[in-house]
């Protein structure tokens, strides 16, 4: 009968499938599962996390920094700067060549800087690093002098970031608009192909001999090929790792990963990312969070140590300030101001006049509930948003949790409709504080606390141009203290770089921003 025939056909198909060997990785080819896909591989246009993964392997930078942010030679073998830190001269190393064979020289760097400045692309990190660029000149001895209209105290470290990777000017000219899809640099890996929504493949640059001094492998990468797969679903990333289709995955789902880690199926490689950790910015211009006691009560009501265990199965670490501990200028004093204390929270709310007069579990005052608006983005906040709302509910708040996407939240928060909104920003420099805590960015920007304080603005403004490191650090410590004393933020957890690795992966080390140095990585048999 027809049905029987079909059944046997299906069975035969399944048997055939079983005979096909499952994917087995060779030991010089690594596949990494990323959660997002890059938009462009042109360093002049880069902005997103996925791009940093690629850019740092395709390109080299003028200087290098290790995990402690100490400076090393890169494509430049030495440099000098004037006292004002407005002029920088780089002496290029003579031996570096691009993947297309053209030399890496001062002209190539100049072409890149000029292109970034001329494009003034607002959606590119390179544009903000080169802000105030006046121009650069190639000197007779082959060195390059770069000038700015204002002091750039962090420029030497900034040029070591992946966004400042130097592309081949010849290739930029040939490719034109398509350069972002066909990148050519001088980095440890060369570009092979990009199949959109599927993968990007890089191969070893066999001529690579200009790796950083701090690397244990100064020569060509140990891996012959690296493939980046784009696996947006966390569960899919984990199963791909389990099935051996990838050897490293970004942000594995905490709860599902924990038992597998405990069973030794994979290892975990974490790195505490510098910058602003994940925290809730509190709107100081909207009731009831316009009262500092209410804001303080919110901070005391949240148990960060418990939150990272419940929401992330301990794969993330708790934080208590608006800078993560690995960031330059981190203030321990500011981070010590608050710890979970529900009684303190209750006392502060009582003092502010918010009591539960009708016994419904929600505090009220003059017939008005202690109600707050919490717009959340599930893409970033799904793991903890309900739990955070529960902490606040326990303290007597009525939490109106609504979910939106990124653009929707920005519109909502820009109009000041929120009471709390999530924020966080990975950056090796604390200057990112200014984008969200400087009152100049209230209108049209991301200063969602709407908090205006001359001392805070002054500290943030002065720190950006302070040449002396001790002075810069002190200014940022002042800023953190003002932010936490005024209870502008509920700190939550650090943006730790969390990677689950196949146990065969060896030599996985991170750079200063929590991205692995892939030329150090190898696969055991």
């Amino acid at each position, binding site marked *: 009968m027809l049905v029987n025939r079909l059944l046997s056909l299906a069975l035969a198909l399944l048997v055939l499938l079983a005979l096909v060997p499952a994917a087995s990785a060779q030991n010089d080819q690594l596949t990494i599962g990323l959660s997002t896909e890059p938009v462009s591989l042109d360093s002049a246009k880069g*902005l997103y996390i996925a791009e940093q993964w690629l850019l740092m392997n395709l390109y080299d930078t003028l200087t290098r920094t290790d995990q402690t942010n100490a400076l090393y030679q890169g494509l430049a073998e030495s440099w000098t700067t004037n006292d004002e830190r407005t002029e920088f001269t780089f002496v290029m190393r003579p031996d570096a060549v691009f993947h297309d064979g053209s030399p890496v020289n001062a002209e190539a760097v100049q072409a890149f800087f000029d292109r970034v400045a001329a494009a003034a692309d607002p959606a590119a990190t390179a544009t903000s690093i080169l802000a105030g660029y006046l121009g650069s000149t190639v000197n007779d001895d082959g060195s390059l002098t770069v000038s700015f209209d204002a002091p750039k105290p962090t420029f030497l470290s900034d040029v070591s970031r992946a966004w400042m990777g130097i592309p081949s000017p010849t290739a930029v000219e040939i490719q034109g608009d398509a350069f972002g899809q066909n990148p050519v640099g001088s980095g440890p890996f060369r570009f092979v192909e990009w199949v959109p*929504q599927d993968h990007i493949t890089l191969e070893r640059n066999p001529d690579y001999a200009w790796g950083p001094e701090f690397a244990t492998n100064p020569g060509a990468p140990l891996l012959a090929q690296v493939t980046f797969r784009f696996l947006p679903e966390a569960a899919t990333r984990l199963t791909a790792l389990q099935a051996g289709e990838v050897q490293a995955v970004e942000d594995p789902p905490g709860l599902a990963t924990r038992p597998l880690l405990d069973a030794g199926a994979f290892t975990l490689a974490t790195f505490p990312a510098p910058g602003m950790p994940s925290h809730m910015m509190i709107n100081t211009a909207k009731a009831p969070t316009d009262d500092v006691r209410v804001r303080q009560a919110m901070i005391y009501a949240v148990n960060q140590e418990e939150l990272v265990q419940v929401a992330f199965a301990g794969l993330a670490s708790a934080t208590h300030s608006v800078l993560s501990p690995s960031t330059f200028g981190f203030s321990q004093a500011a981070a010590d101001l608050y710890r979970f204390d529900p009684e303190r929270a209750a006392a502060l709310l009582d003092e502010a006049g918010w009591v539960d007069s009708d016994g419904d579990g929600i505090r009220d005052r003059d017939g008005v509930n202690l109600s707050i608006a919490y717009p959340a983005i599930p893409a970033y906040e799904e793991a903890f948003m309900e739990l955070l709302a529960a902490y606040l509910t326990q303290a007597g708040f009525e939490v109106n949790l609504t979910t939106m996407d990124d653009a929707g939240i920005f519109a909502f928060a820009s109009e000041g409709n929120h009471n709390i909104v999530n924020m966080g920003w990975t950056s090796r420099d604390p200057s990112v504080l200014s984008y969200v805590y400087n009152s100049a960015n209230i209108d049209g920007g991301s200063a969602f606390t709407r908090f205006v304080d001359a001392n805070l603005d002054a500290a943030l403004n002065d720190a950006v141009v302070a040449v002396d490191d001790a002075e810069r650090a002190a200014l940022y410590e002042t800023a953190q203290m003002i932010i936490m004393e005024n209870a502008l933020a509920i700190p939550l957890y650090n943006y730790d770089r969390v990677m689950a690795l196949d146990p065969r992966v060896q030599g996985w080390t991170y750079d200063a921003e929590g991205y692995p140095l892939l030329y150090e990585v190898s696969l055991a048999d």
Partner: protein
Amino acid sequence: MLAYLRRRVALSFLVLVGVTLITFMIVRLVPGDPVVAVLGRQAVSAENAAALREQLGLNDSLPEQYTSFVGNLLRGDLGRSIRTERPVWDMISEQLPSTIALTVSAMAIALVAGFAIGTLAALRRDSWVDRLLMFSIMAGVSMPSFWLGMLLIMLLSVGLNWVPAAAPASDPRSLILPALTLGIAETAVLARIIRASLLEVLSQPYLTVAHAKGLRGRYILFRHAMPNALIPIISIVGLQFGLLLSGSVVVESLFARPGLGRLTVTAVNNRDFPVIQGIVLVVAVIYLTVNTLTDIASALVNPRVRLS
């Protein structure tokens, strides 16, 4: 026939105009600024936002934006993505083959399995076989494809290691799990309709006559009953094609498979207007074409249907 086709094309054109207008308005009425989506909430400063808005032509009035969109469309230009700055048609055309491969395989699975199950259930009407099959079908219809996909991954990839969970597109085995996931739900839909349609035909007097003439059961089924039971199926398959296209949104994301569905998700999240408009337009064209073809096919197999 020609007159029918001419009218059909004219009507399709009107539908497409409506589609462009509605998508154009919907993507702009949804709260949220594409500028923010491009820059990220963090990197937005008033200065950056204004510069990008100007660059993207978002300062023009809505009628101006629509006129320029339609003008470009008539020249065959779908515009460029706000996020990647690549031509929208390039982005769509490189993803289209993958989605078509997925929907066609899913439809093939559904047709084969749906016919087998539907026929068996109809022939064994009201027996335990029929009840068991119809119960499984109910389960199949009710199961969200996201969950079904996860189950299949757990069973066939992680458990038995037969097929890859998320193989790169270049590996032909990457089609197996997504097509099964999408196909199983569709099987359930088709099997029910085939069963019902076949039952109706089987009760017709001309089949009693066929039996009375002493024809063999199989001959009656395939020669007399099936062709007539097929007629409503053809139009259903056309309609279900649209459902499969929308199902690809979930399935492609789950299996990390390239395709239009996943491109749509990314474009919507990024408020990438030109890409969203382009995808809706292309999908509308596919849908209209498939439905026109199924209408013609119904007319060919059923002389009672007149294309006029």
